[in-house]
Structure formats: structure tokens, C-alpha cells
């Protein structure tokens, strides 16, 4: 599959604290890359570096575009319900972000919505945008009920079939299982393991990730 972006040697420091260390990752057309790691593993920082919102302390991100950077009109990103501006009416946000494609008649301010409704609003507005060729979602299942989760998985599969490249992060492997074509496991800012669609628990190191993998096992 054709690469949309490739990042090499990414590191990020906030003062003395190193949140990413020498990360290499690529995102390809018609593929979903799953980024798995516990809270604080560096998933959000990595996503924001890839889309150009945060500058890496070292390393580089190569977008395979003429401009060499994330193309504004082709890249979708949603960082979670907490990144929606609280005072904007839901209807205005949906129309603004989706470029008039998402339908929402709720005139209440975003802050008046439940967490799950905010998450759905943000996701539906972003995913309704036309002509996306890369989508970056940070913990998109957070706060969604089972219906919302099913809707999200279904729309992400459809986006992949349409040719989109997707990078989706979660700290829960079961969110991503069955959806992703490739997985990268982040632990303390480093990619400690990679796996294909068929995850082998033996390929993973680190107690947190092994615990996460346990969630995939069917209940007795």
C-alpha cells in the first residue's frame, strides 16, 4: 500500500521529561494503523507531532505531498471530546468542521452535552468531511456507548475501503481488535512491539501491554 506519511526517529521532551523516544511509524492508504499504549505512553503527543501541531525535539515527519506537510483539506483529526470548544453551539460546530456535510439540529452549547454526545458530535463532524485521505483519531471510542462504538467501527471500515489512511489510538486493545491492519505498541514513549492483523501476544513486551492484550481473550 502507498505510504501517506513516514516519520523517523521522533523524540519529544518537555523539559527533563522525555515523552517520546526514537519512534518510527508510517501510515498507508487503505490501512488502519492501531496505536496502543497505556495512559501517558505518548500516543497523543505522537499523533499531534504527525499532524504538525507539535514540533518534535528530534526526528522528522515526511508527508508524501508536494508541500511536505499535512494538507489542511485532506487530513482529518479528532483529539477527543475535551478538545471541543465548550461555548460553541453543537449545530455550528458540526457545520463548521464538516464543511456543511454533518447534520445536527442541536443548538445547545457543546458544554451542555453529555460526554458521549460530545464525542459523537466531534467524530461525526470530522468523519463527514469530504475528500479526506488521512484520518488521525485519538482515543475515539472514549465515552461512546455500544451503539456509538459499532457506528464508529463501521464508518472507519468504510473510510478504509474508500482509500483513506487511518491512524487510531487507544489504550484498550479490544477497541482496535478486528479493525486494524497493523499495530504499534507504545510503552513509555517507545514503540516496543509491532504486529500485523493477527496479533501474537508473544511479540509484546511490557506488563501494561500484556495486560491490555489479555482484554482480547474471550471471557470464559
Amino acid at each position: 500500500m502507498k505510504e501517506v506519511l513516514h516519520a523517523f526517529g521522533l523524540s519529544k521532551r518537555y523539559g527533563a521529561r522525555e515523552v517520546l523516544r526514537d519512534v518510527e511509524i508510517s501510515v498507508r492508504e487503505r490501512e488502519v494503523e492501531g496505536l496502543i499504549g497505556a495512559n501517558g505512553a505518548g500516543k497523543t503527543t505522537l499523533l499531534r507531532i504527525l499532524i504538525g501541531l507539535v514540533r518534535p525535539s528530534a526526528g522528522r515527519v515526511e508527508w508524501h505531498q508536494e508541500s511536505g506537510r499535512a494538507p489542511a483539506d485532506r487530513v482529518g483529526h479528532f483529539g477527543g471530546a475535551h478538545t471541543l470548544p465548550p461555548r460553541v453551539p453543537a449545530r455550528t460546530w458540526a457545520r463548521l468542521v464538516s464543511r456543511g456535510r454533518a447534520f445536527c439540529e442541536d443548538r445547545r452549547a457543546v458544554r451542555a452535552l453529555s460526554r458521549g454526545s460530545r464525542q459523537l458530535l466531534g467524530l461525526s463532524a470530522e468523519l463527514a468531511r469530504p475528500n479526506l485521505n488521512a484520518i488521525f483519531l485519538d482515543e475515539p471510542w472514549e465515552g461512546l456507548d455500544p451503539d456509538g462504538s459499532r457506528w464508529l467501527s463501521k464508518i472507519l471500515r468504510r473510510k478504509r475501503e474508500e482509500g483513506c489512511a487511518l491512524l487510531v489510538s487507544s489504550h484498550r486493545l479490544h477497541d482496535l481488535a478486528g479493525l486494524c491492519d497493523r499495530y504499534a505498541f507504545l510503552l513509555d514513549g517507545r514503540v516496543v512491539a509491532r504486529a500485523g492483523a493477527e496479533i501474537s501476544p508473544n511479540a509484546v513486551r511490557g506488563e501494561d501491554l500484556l495486560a491490555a492484550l489479555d482484554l482480547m481473550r474471550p471471557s470464559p
Partner: protein
Amino acid sequence: MSRISAFRYFTAVSPPPATLIVVFGVLAIGAGALEAVDRGSSDWVLASIAVVQLFATSTGFTRHATRGYYDPVLIGSGRSRIALAHFAVSAAPGALAWLACGACQGFAARSPAVPALAPAGLAALLLVSAVPWAVTVRSAPFLGGTLWLLLSASLFAAGKLLPPLGRLHVQPAWAEDHPLTAFAVGLAFPAVIPSLDWPPAILLAFAATAALALSGGSLLIARADVSLAEEGA
């Protein structure tokens, strides 16, 4: 075209506070009423708009950006374009009130040569819009306006502002002999700029200061690392 208009985005997501818009509206209407009753009596309204504008443009950028509120408009966009749109949205209500006041003055005087629309008036508007905006890009809202007002009040209290202001009123040529002092007085209390006569070089210095502030603020936004607040904490 599927790119979000940065101006439209900031208008929807972080418009200037409604109370300030109401104040600007009242001031503009007041200017019209004053000019209708007594031609040329609305100069103090310009000074009031200038003071309110110090706060209206002190909106702050980084505080909202590091919460992720500006993500959709920041991805892949030229940051200079974003900075200018943010500035334009912050400054628009005050600028509109200023121009409305100028229109009232011009209509009453049957001439466009009125304080609000003269070079000194426009330089003052640019100054009170750009400098607080730039100062506040990376700090808390209203900090730029508060600091400027505190500086003016301190200089007044220390007796440093009234004597040169008096000289500028009585003897406009004084500014040509003491350009640095005159420039400093204008900067310290920009509300008086429209009502005084200034040499072209000083007006140019006011405009250059505003342009420098605008460039500095844009540079701060261009180089900003938009980490979410909890990431960098």
C-alpha cells in the same frame, strides 16, 4: 474548496466577549448622538473606544490552542494566515465602532478630515489593537490591556504624563523638538493620539510599532508548540 476559513472559524469559536461588543455599540451610537447635537464633540468617545479596544484585542491565543479548540484550523495551515485571522476577529468590533464614530464625525463635519479617520486616528487604532493582541498571544486574556492601563495610570500618578501632554496640546511644534518624548507619551497614553497634531515621523513610528507588534505576535503563533495542556504539564 474544503479548507475552513480561519476568520469564520475564530468568529464562531472565540468571538470577542459579548459585553465588549455591547459597549462598542453603545459608544458608536453615543458618538452619533453627540455629533448630531454638537459637531466635533465626540472626540472623547474615540478615547473611550481606544481604552476598551485595549481589552477587546487581549484575547489570548495559546490558552485556547493548548486545549485543542483550534486544532481543526491549525492542521496544515500557514500559521501567519491563522495569526492574522485571529487578530482580525479580535480587533473587528472595536475597529467597526471606531469607523462608525469616524463616519458620524465626517457626516457632521461634511468632510472626511476628522480625528477618527485622520492618519493620527488610524495610527492610534492600529496601535491599541495590535500591541495588546501581541502581548496576550501567550498569556492570560486581558493581560495586555491591563498592563497598558497600569502603565498609563502609574505614569499619571508619578506626574510624568501630564506636563508633556499639556505641552503637546498648547504647542504642537514641541513634538518636533522632542520626538522621543512625544513618541513615548503617545505610546503611554494612546487614547490622546487622535486629538493631537503629530509630525509625520512620529505617526510613522506609531504605525511601525503596531506593525512590529503584529509581526511579533504572528511569529509567536507560527512557532507555537500546540501540545495539549496536560501533555506538557
